[in-house]
């Protein structure tokens, strides 16, 4: 599994990693400083101890040198080196020597290698340098070598004077190896402590960052839910702090609550609108069917009373026929409008052109000017619904026009869409009723059913198309329809 880029890591991990890193770095820095300081302090103390030991030798040495008592000089070095038998002491004498002004050995802790009376012969470059510095000094000094290594040492160098005459030098060299071991164990303790604090710090950091980031995670999840449109099952983020994140959480909770309320309201509105529409349809059907029915029932009643009156029969029968046809039309339109989804039939585009003849025939006596323009591909197959749309729009336009009016039909393709435009030079639609234009049973015509444009609207909607109305008072009206035809292109 590939590790994702740090940029996409969760904030809680990044925060706790940062805290852990900071704690570790700070811990190690403090630890290093502690160990180094500790080392320096003990190192300096070791130097002072070496100097002190040299000085203790230097007190008695001049007299012994004057007496030529080399054995006493040697014993003083030896006793000094084994001052704490058994305990091991807190220092370790590597070597000690007393040299005369010419650098000859007066006494040496390793007499076999450094015979008395012969010139002290340091071998290495460092040793030679230390030897020269020891012989050169006329004041007590501490010479260091080896730095932080376990083979390092501190050397106390004390020049010997008798009656202001320089008589030689005492050198006592202490090993830092015990110091080194001490520093090592201190470092180990410090390391363990640091690790302990790192673990504690990291755990605390993780807990703190988790707690800090938790509301942010909830906000993010909430926003993602909003993006998906799920808002109802959102649980409010618990707010414990009053900091920026706390305030963000509070605000977010409010926004979510308001969004949820809005959605609920919208749903309620949609529901009530549905009920209103249903009511309107019901009322429309009741009204539109009831009107002819009253007349029909009247006619039937009259005919039943005068079954032999031929005059009455001739007069009422066409009325009954007309009324029943009207009811049939209304029911047909309602069925068309309500069952549009079921219709999947396609027809050739030329079927639309036949409507010209139909409309022209229906309005032959009204002197309506019909301008017909079809710029589409003649082989195009279109849903049958389009034929109905065009017929309804043309019929609507013609009905609103006074005699001698003009209707223009224009159909063409634009990309994957079929564009239909039906314009008239009629009186236009008043702006106050434009919202109700596509409502069922809404009509301004005396004999209109109020279902024609509603059916158009429903058909366009079912094809996921768009219908627009451009209209101004006394400037005519244009219906503009765009429906996708990509799925209905002839194979």
């Amino acid at each position, binding site marked *: 599994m590939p590790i994702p880029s740090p940029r996409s890591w969760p904030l809680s991990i990044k925060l706790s990693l940062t805290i852990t890193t900071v704690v570790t770095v700070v811990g190690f820095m403090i630890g290093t400083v502690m160990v180094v300081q500790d080392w320096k302090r003990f190192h300096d103390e070791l130097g002072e101890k070496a100097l002190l030991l040299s000085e203790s030798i230097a007190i008695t040495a001049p007299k012994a040198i004057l007496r030529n008592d080399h*054995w006493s000089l*040697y*014993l003083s070095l030896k006793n000094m080196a084994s001052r704490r038998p058994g305990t091991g002491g807190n220092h370790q004498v590597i070597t000690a020597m007393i040299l005369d002004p010419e650098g000859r050995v007066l*006494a040496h802790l390793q*007499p*076999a290698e450094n*015979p008395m009376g012969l010139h002290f012969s340091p071998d290495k470059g460092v040793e030679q340098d230390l030897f020269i510095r020891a012989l050169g000094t006329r004041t007590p000094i501490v010479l260091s070598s080896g730095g932080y290594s376990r083979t390092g040492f501190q050397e106390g160098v004390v020049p010997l004077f008798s009656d202001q005459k320089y008589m030689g030098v005492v050198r006592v060299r202490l090993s830092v190896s015990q110091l080194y071991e001490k520093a090592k164990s201190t470092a180990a303790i410090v390391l363990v402590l640091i690790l302990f604090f790192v673990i504690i710090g990291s755990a605390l950091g993780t807990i703190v960052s988790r707690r800090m980031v938790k509301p942010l995670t909830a906000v993010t999840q909430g926003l993602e839910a909003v993006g998906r449109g799920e808002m109802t099952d959102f649980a409010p983020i618990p707010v414990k702090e009053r900091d920026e994140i706390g305030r963000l959480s509070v605000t977010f909770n409010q926004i979510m609550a308001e969004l949820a309320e809005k959605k609920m309201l919208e749903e309620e509105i949609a529901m009530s609108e549905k009920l209103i529409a249903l009511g309107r349809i019901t009322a429309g059907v009741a009204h539109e069917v009831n009107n002819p029915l009253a007349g029909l029932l009247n006619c039937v009643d009259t005919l039943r009373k005068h079954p032999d009156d031929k005059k009455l029969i001739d007069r009422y029968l066409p009325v009954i026929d007309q009324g029943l046809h009207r009811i049939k039309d209304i029911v047909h339109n309602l069925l068309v409008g309500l069952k549009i989804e079921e219709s999947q039939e396609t027809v050739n585009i030329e079927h639309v052109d036949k409507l010209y003849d139909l409309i022209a025939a229906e309005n032959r006596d009204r002197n309506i000017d019909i301008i017909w323009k079809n710029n589409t591909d003649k082989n195009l197959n279109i849903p049958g619904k389009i034929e109905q749309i065009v017929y309804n729009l043309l019929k609507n336009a013609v009905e609103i026009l006074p005699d001698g009016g003009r209707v223009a039909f224009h159909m063409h393709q634009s990309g994957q869409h079929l564009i239909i435009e039906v314009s008239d030079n009629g009186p236009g639609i008043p702006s106050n009723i434009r919202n109700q234009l596509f409502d069922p049973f809404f009509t301004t015509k005396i004999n209109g059913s109020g279902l024609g444009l509603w059916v158009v609207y429903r058909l366009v909607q079912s094809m996921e198309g768009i219908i627009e109305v451009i209209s101004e008072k006394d400037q005519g009206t244009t219906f503009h329809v765009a429906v996708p035809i990509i799925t209905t292109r002839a194979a």
Partner: protein
Amino acid sequence: MRLIYLVLFFWITPTYSADTEASIRFGLTAVVLTENLRFLDQWSEYLEHKIDRKVEFVLRKSYREVMDLLDTGDIEFAWICGYPYVQIRKPEFLQLLTVPVYRGAPRYYSYIIVHHKSPYKRFSDLKGKLFAFSDPDSNSGFLYPLVLLAEKGNKPETFFRQTFFTFNHAETVQAVSEQVADGGAVDSYIWEYLAVFKPEITEKTRIIKKSPGFGFPPIVSRVGVNRDTVKLMKDTLENMNQDSTGKILLDRLKLDGFGHFPDSLFNEIRAMANRIQRSDSKYTMSPID
């Protein structure tokens, strides 16, 4: 009543005076190992018990200091080396008390020792080397090697690169064992004593020359000390091997006992001292007078 008090007074006085009588002071030098203070306490207790007087051992670093104490009368007895004993003093303030018997005879030797890993086989191999003497007033630790050198017409300052005194036979052994000195001259009694009690030191040394026998370092009394005290001390020491406590103490000293021997026992040392005195007065003791 008064008489009774008077009688009581005289009766008490001797006891009182005996208690307060100055203790017998006995000087010790490095001819014996003086580090063992517990042994010295036991020995002084033994002598106190026998002599019925407090005995106090007086320790000094060098033979010279002990000789000075004898001269000034600060000590009554001393265990000294044969070399100071044979010195001519005017007036003489020493007299021979008794001589320790060591391994059946009142004799001991001077050992010339070197480090056991050193290549030196003969005394002449030590030419140009570093040599440790014990005490400038010691027969075995100084006079004998001087004579050895003088026999070949040499002197220490020209024969050896450097010399030093340890003022203590045991420390001479230590100096050689620790290679501070390439060679050294020691008392055979001390070396053998160390070989028993501190073999780790003597194991690091090797004897390359053993001198002829010399009179064992004697115990002397100061001229002028109460004759009875001298006799009591002499008898006590010479009879130590007669009782168990004395035997235990003698065993600790690794001695057979103490015995009466004539002054002629020290003629060899006397001859060597004279020889050195003739050749170079620098190495002889200045007359103490």
